[in-house]
């Protein structure tokens, strides 16, 4: 603290001023070099692509501005469904994943069936491709005839997403629980807290903080997989684009859907990076390597 104040008041020596000027020149130089190399690289890539023999046709079937504008409303409507599914799937996965992770930490012989069930679940659903889970849930659950009415495809799709992603997310939670130092649990138990209160008040809050970047990354992966619910017939962005493609024989609507998904992912990706960097900075406090 006082060191900072001293530096403020003191005029740096000539050697230090020389060093600072040198560092400024270095950083100006590296910015200029990176700008130049980026421009050269972009021009080379661009020239290569537009000089391929089929470029004109590809451009008109994938990047047609008129089709882009006309397809946007329908794809956007579908995209809103993806957003709704994503919100419910994220919440469902967080809750269900946490539940599975908690089941796996239970001690005691009575809980053996629950532990085994949770372990079997994570093994099974981490191995099963999402598309197969979608088909099994999408066509299997309605076949059971729980309800008289038809269950909407987006609900079935959400269930399939939650089932698959909870298996991954519960493993992330479990890694977090194991990463909390045993001495924390010891300290909590020594105060007279029981197993569940220790888990809820001491272990879980620290575990979730440790694994938040990894969790956010799983949710980034999920936000693009919500597009797969279209295989069950839900009219989402992908299915909306498909309909537009069938009408115009132009693939630009797929690009529209792709752009929307990327725009959705970008803030979440940036947020994940920012949060990971913040955590790292906090853990390394003051050191530069």
């Amino acid at each position: 603290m006082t060191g900072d104040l001293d530096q403020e008041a003191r005029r740096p020596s000539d050697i230090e001023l020389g060093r600072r000027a040198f560092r400024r020149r270095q950083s100006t130089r590296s910015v200029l070099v990176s700008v130049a190399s980026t421009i050269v690289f972009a021009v080379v890539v661009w020239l290569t692509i537009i000089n391929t023999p089929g470029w004109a046709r590809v451009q008109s079937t994938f990047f047609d501005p008129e089709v882009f504008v006309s397809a946007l409303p329908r794809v956007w409507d579908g995209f809103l469904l993806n957003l709704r599914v994503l919100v419910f799937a994220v919440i469902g996965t967080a809750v269900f994943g946490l539940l599975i992770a908690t089941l796996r930490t239970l001690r005691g012989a009575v809980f053996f069936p629950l532990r085994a069930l949770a372990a079997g679940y994570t093994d099974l659903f981490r191995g099963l491709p999402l598309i197969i889970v979608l088909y099994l849930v999408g066509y299997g659950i309605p076949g059971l005839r729980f309800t008289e009415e038809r269950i909407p495809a987006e609900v079935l799709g959400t269930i399939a997403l939650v089932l698959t992603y909870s298996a991954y997310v519960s493993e992330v939670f479990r890694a977090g629980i194991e990463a909390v130092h045993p001495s924390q649990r010891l300290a909590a138990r020594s105060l007279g807290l029981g197993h569940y209160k220790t888990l809820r008040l001491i272990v879980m809050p620290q575990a979730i903080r440790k694994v938040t970047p990894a969790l956010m990354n799983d949710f980034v992966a999920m936000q693009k997989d919500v597009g797969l619910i279209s295989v069950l017939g839900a009219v989402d962005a992908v299915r909306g684009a498909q309909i537009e493609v069938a009408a115009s024989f132009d693939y630009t609507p797929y690009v529209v859907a792709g752009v929307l998904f990327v725009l959705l992912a970008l803030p979440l990706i940036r947020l994940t990076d920012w949060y990971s960097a913040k955590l790292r900075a906090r853990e390394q406090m003051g050191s530069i390597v």
Partner: protein
Amino acid sequence: MSAVLRLEDVHKSFGRTEVLRGISLEVAAHEVVVLIGASGSGKSTLLRTINLLEPIDDGRVWLGDRDISDPRVRADAVRSRIGIVFQHYNLFPHLSVLDNVTLALRHVQGVDRAAAEQRGLELLERIGLASFARVFPDRLSGGQQQRTAIVRAIATNPELLLLDEITSALDPELVGDVLALVRELADEGTTIVMATHEMAFAREVADRIVFLDSGVILEQGSPSEVFGAPREPRTREFLARFL
């Protein structure tokens, strides 16, 4: 007067290593008992078995007139009657200093938040850290963290306070404040069992010194007896290293 704590022939092994080989010890109310001995002599294990953090292999442990080594006893209830402070403070990094201190009051004893925080602030006031109540423990120095850990352990007024080498991880200039707090607690009549390597402090504050060697109590007595005229050659050899 009946003993607060009584150990009868306590045994404890980790795998094939026998760490405690028949410990019998009685601690009276308001007594300060200091365990000394080399690293690995069983001091920490002994403290942990008293708090039921380690199950014992044989013998009995009495807290007041209750046999707490009986497996039917609820360990959580016993632990809430005993405070323990560890070498590495073990404060909860995600809770504020005040929440650390009031955790057991609120979630074990069921005291409401306002009353718990009033008690917590009084305790922090006492160790001069009331202004740090709302910050996280990583803002505190090692000595401040350890003093916070001590008031966390005594917040629920336990019958017995266990201190496990609480100054071993501290820089020498921070040890004084922590020991001053322990001395205050001892003067107020807190029953304390502590393991330490601070011989000068042990001599000044202890009612009784217990020398542990390879899992047995080799010698015990008042500080002047054990430090002034140790009977056992092993004790003399151990103490010589501190002079």
